[in-house]
């Protein structure tokens, strides 16, 4: 028990330290952290001071009891790292130095926490403000301490290198420094290394290679930030003294990354903006330097912080969401941020923001007038739908159509589109004869149902005396409310359906999508998600299959053991996060597969972990499952870009991804064999993945999932030229 605690403590602290290193480049990748750590030691004293400060900060953050996950991410400690690197660069080592370093790193943690908390309230990042303030304090105060002296090591850094690495290291470093590189290129490498307070081509090269592996978008943004800065300086003929490698690295290149692809989802627009912000940052550097140099202080990365915070703050003030999207969930990689954002958008996974409305009738009905319909859906009442039943010849009545009962929709049950409370009922308007019209009592017999605050649905022109519910009654989705009639402004029987924000009979309409419906097409019915049918379309509700609902209704605590030849047995447990997100947790590989089940569709939203586990296979096979056994409805979806892990053109696509995609992975699924609709018989689901690269399609995965007795029994996947049969033991 004790040993376990010690291990988890050590793991926590070491992760915090490593993440502090990668965080300097907006990353949380382990390999990249190790590389940055290594590079920081190319200047051993600086590296040592940085490491000591980070470790101190990590311990302080741990014992001060901040949120464990936040501490692990390195957010509280990277300022300490920067401060340590800075002090190691400026000061001579000695007892006084170490005492000051200790205090500085503690101060940086406190400041970080304060900045994170105060800026976090406005959804802004703390960036390196804590580091700047800490180092300023140190610089201003250190003049008064005799135990501390400014270092001259940086001037004679070759001596240091000789002391630590011998002649070989010197030769290597010299060889790098004397490489016949164009000034612009060597300048770039030096600028990159300047982020770690170095001016070293070798360090810059190593970091650049690391960046290339970490994020192609980030590296491209750094290069473009560098180029823009250089061009701007030449164009303006500005005071070149303030333009050193440090400013190029931290203030211009990092601004470009932060706004071009990290805090904003990378896109053509974000990149354009980031390029505009580079000159802004440049002006700030000069302006601030004019102020700070009077106290003998460098500006450090203050221009970077001000520019980024200002832009992010202003972007949040936009009235409409705008086309530039602030990163909704930070995955610490521009690629990851972009791909997950796009995938969520394409898959309409934001659907839980909407109240789930279904069509208010049974069977197939046709939209006779849609939104903005020219007849009566006009002005403030334009977002409404009229429904009728039509036969194959698009006739709404059987011969001769002179009586109301000749109309197919007349007297048909009208259902509640969602759970709610009956707010208002009008049931005294006589039904018109065919061709009649009652404009005085425009809406006729009507029911208004309250589903949530600000979401009401209204059904009108109902048949007099057909109401099955009373005012204030609680109705469930699909309950029969009344029958379709011909009252009010209705020359022929039809059903008027609208969503509104207020509870009145004559409230204005509100555009609101239906969660799911099936649209009849010539070839195959089409499943529509979060859409509104348009005039002339014939639509019906998705009829859920009880057995599929049961099989995919995974509840927290549910455990499943799965076996396959050539694989270790896995146990999956269904868990739920603090934010009510459900996921499978694979105990053996510690992998996570997040999913959503809204009663109509089951779909996986994200997968983290081992790509060779059985859970990953299940994630691919059951990426999206319509919980209906209608064999004619196919579901399609797109896999996130991560599905292309090992493609040779991956990096090229990453680079181009803010602009366009030439690689996509499509998912298709349908019911191959259905049950008897009453829960017995086995169901076979078939699904496949199709990779489309440069217009060429290739099937990359084929899967079959078998369900019987209300449970997932087995699935079979053809993947990477292998056939894997997986048996599930519930």
């Amino acid at each position, binding site marked *: 028990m004790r040993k376990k605690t010690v291990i988890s403590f050590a793991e926590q602290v070491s992760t915090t330290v490593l993440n502090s290193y990668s965080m300097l480049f907006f990353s949380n990748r382990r390999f990249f952290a190790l590389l940055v750590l290594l590079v920081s030691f190319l200047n051993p004293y600086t590296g040592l001071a940085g490491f000591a400060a980070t470790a101190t900060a990590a311990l302080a953050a741990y014992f001060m009891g901040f949120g464990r996950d936040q501490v692990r991410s390195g957010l509280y400690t990277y300022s300490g790292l920067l401060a340590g690197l800075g002090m190691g660069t400026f000061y001579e080592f000695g007892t006084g130095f170490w005492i000051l370093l200790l205090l500085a790193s503690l101060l940086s943690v406190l400041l970080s926490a304060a900045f994170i908390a105060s800026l976090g309230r406005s959804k802004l990042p703390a960036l390196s403000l804590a580091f700047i303030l800490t180092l300023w304090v140190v610089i201003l105060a250190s003049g008064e301490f005799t135990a501390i002296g400014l270092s001259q090591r940086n001037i004679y850094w070759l001596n240091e290198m000789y002391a630590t690495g011998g002649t070989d290291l010197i030769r290597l470093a010299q060889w790098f420094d004397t490489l016949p590189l164009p000034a612009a290129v060597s300048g770039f490498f030096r600028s990159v290394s300047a982020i770690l307070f170095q001016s070293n081509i070798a360090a810059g090269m190593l970091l650049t290679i690391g960046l290339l592996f970490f994020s192609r978008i980030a590296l491209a943004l750094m290069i473009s930030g560098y180029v823009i800065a250089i061009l701007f300086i030449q164009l303006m003929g500005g005071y070149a003294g303030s333009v050193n490698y440090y400013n190029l690295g931290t203030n211009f290149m990092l601004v470009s990354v932060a706004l071009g692809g990290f805090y904003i989802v990378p896109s053509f627009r974000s990149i354009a903006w980031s390029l505009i912000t580079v000159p802004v940052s440049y002006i700030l550097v000069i302006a601030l330097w004019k102020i700070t140099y009077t106290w003998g202080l460098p500006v450090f990365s203050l221009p970077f912080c001000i520019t980024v915070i200002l832009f992010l703050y202003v972007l949040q003030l936009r009235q409409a969401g705008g086309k530039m999207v602030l990163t909704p969930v930070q995955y610490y990689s521009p690629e990851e941020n972009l791909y997950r954002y796009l995938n969520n958008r394409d898959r309409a996974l934001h659907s839980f923001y909407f109240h789930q409305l279904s069509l208010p*009738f*049974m069977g*197939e*009905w046709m939209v006779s007038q849609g939104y903005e319909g020219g007849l009566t859906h006009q002005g403030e009442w334009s977002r409404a739908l009229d429904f009728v039943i039509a*036969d194959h010849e698009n006739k709404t009545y059987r011969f001769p159509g002179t009586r109301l009962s000749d109309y197919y929709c007349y007297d048909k049950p009208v259902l509640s589109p969602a759970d709610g409370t009956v707010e208002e009922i009008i049931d005294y308007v006589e039904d018109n004869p065919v061709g009649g019209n009652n404009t005085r009592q425009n809406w006729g017999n009507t029911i208004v149902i309250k589903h949530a605050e600000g979401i009401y649905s209204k059904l009108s022109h109902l048949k007099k005396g057909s109401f099955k519910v009373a005012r204030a009654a609680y109705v469930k989705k*699909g309950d029969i409310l009344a029958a379709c009639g011909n009252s009010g402004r209705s020359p022929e029987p039809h059903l008027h359906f609208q969503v509104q924000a207020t509870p009145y009979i004559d409230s204005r309409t509100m555009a609101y999508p239906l969660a799911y419906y099936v649209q009849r097409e010539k070839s195959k019915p089409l499943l529509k998600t979060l859409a509104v049918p348009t005039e002339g379309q014939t639509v019906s509700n998705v009829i859920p299959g009880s057995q599929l609902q049961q099989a995919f209704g995974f509840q927290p605590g549910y455990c499943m053991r799965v076996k396959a030849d050539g694989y270790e047995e896995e146990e999956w447990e269904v868990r739920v996060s603090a934010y009510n997100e459900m996921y499978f947790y694979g105990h053996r590989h510690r992998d996570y597969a997040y999913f959503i089940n809204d009663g109509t569709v089951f779909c996986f939203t994200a997968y983290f972990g081992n790509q060779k586990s059985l859970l990953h296979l299940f994630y691919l096979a059951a990426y999206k499952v319509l919980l209906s056994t209608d064999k004619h409805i196919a579901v399609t979806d797109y896999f996130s870009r991560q599905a292309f892990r090992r493609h040779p053109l991956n990096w090229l696509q990453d680079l181009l991804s803010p602009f366009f995609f030439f690689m996509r992975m499509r998912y298709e699924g349908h019911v191959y064999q259905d*049950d008897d609709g*009453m829960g*017995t018989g086995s169901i076979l689901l078939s699904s496949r993945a199709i990779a489309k690269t440069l217009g060429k399609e290739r099937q990359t995965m084929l899967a079959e999932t078998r369900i019987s007795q209300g449970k997932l029994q087995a699935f079979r996947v053809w993947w990477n030229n292998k056939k894997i049969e997986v048996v599930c033991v519930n």
Partner: protein
Amino acid sequence: MNKQVYESPSIQKMNGGLMNKFGTRSSYEPVKQIDGVAVNFLMEQFGSPLFVLSERTIRRSYQSAVRAFKTRYPKVQFAWSYKTNYLNAVCRIFHQEGSWAEVVSGFEYRKAVGNGVPGHKIIFNGPGKTDEELRVAANNGSLIHIDHFDELYQLIALSDTLDKKPKVAIRVNMDTGVYPLWDRFGFNYENGQAAEALGKITASGKLELAGLHCHIGTYMLSPDAYVKAVEKLGDLAWKCKTELNSPVRYIDLGGGFPSTNTLRGSFLPGPDTVPPVDEFAEAITSRLLKLGFGAEELPLLLLESGRVLVDDAGFLLSTVLAGKRLPDGRRAIILDAGVNLLFTSFWYDHPVSPAQDFTHHTEDMALFGPLCMNIDVLRQGINLPLLNRGDRVVVHKVGAYNMTQWMQFIQMRPNVVLIDEEGGTHLIRQAEDLAYLEQLEKTPEHLKEINL
């Protein structure tokens, strides 16, 4: 100017009473094409007599019946009654539309399997099922509808030898206010036999009680009878849920919806007296919704309609072989199709239309078939334009039961043609020939030599 058509002279009796102010003109229209395909073309191509089926009409009838039910009740499933017309092409149209299969014999069962219907979508009805048939059906997961106690015991006895627990329902007969009562099939509701059978099924532990079935009659003209049936089956369903703790998942109301054919001896023609499917649907579903089951436990409504879905889609094309005058003065027409092909003419007055132009003169006449048998009468009396040898007629509404109950008697069965939705014609059953008829016959050795 075209040459005038010759019509044999006829003498009509003067009727007393008021003159019809519209004259004596009949309401007949010649029927020269079916779904856009000329009758003459069909008969020249495929011979006479000829059965023609309209795929479009089949699909439309099915779709409108489905629409009538599915817009009123959330869980509805039709099962095509094989005995009504089990030509594979016809069955497959229904299966394509989503219909299951309802069979009443082992060979119909195999036919359904052959048509690609999965086992769990076949309903096995009928009073006589063999051990082997039951074994196959049970192992395929089909719904077995038990007709009597002996079958129940037979199935319980068999159950130990089966791979799967048989899924069963009982057929229930009851008084629905329509007479004569159909009490021959199934277990009676009123005398408690049905409840007893249900008790035995659940008590045996060897059968899975899946549903309840009834078939209250055929050509039912009153939706009220179905309401009674729903009430009584609903009562049994409640018993299953509350007393036997074995809720049923479906209620099968069988078939029996009438087509618009006119029954022999009825006063008014079928189209005026037969309620449309919508009326049955309204009566059945509104009663079903009032049974008191919650939204999740609502039973699936199964329907085994046959006649109403296919009768209108069938046509029999026939040629006039001869005309003669009977001793009582009536005109008689001999057609090349008789009751051997049109079994339903025993109880329907099928509408018949000429397939060519005619004058306004009409005459009462009898339509006989080609059989050398007294019973071969298609219509005892029908008012038709004057017909000559070689003229063609179209008999309407013959899609149900004729292509299953037809007889190979004196004459052989003709071609059956399907007109698809695009107007293409498909031969779906070839005319029989002598070789086909004799292929199963065996001649004993001593009868091989004939010395005449």
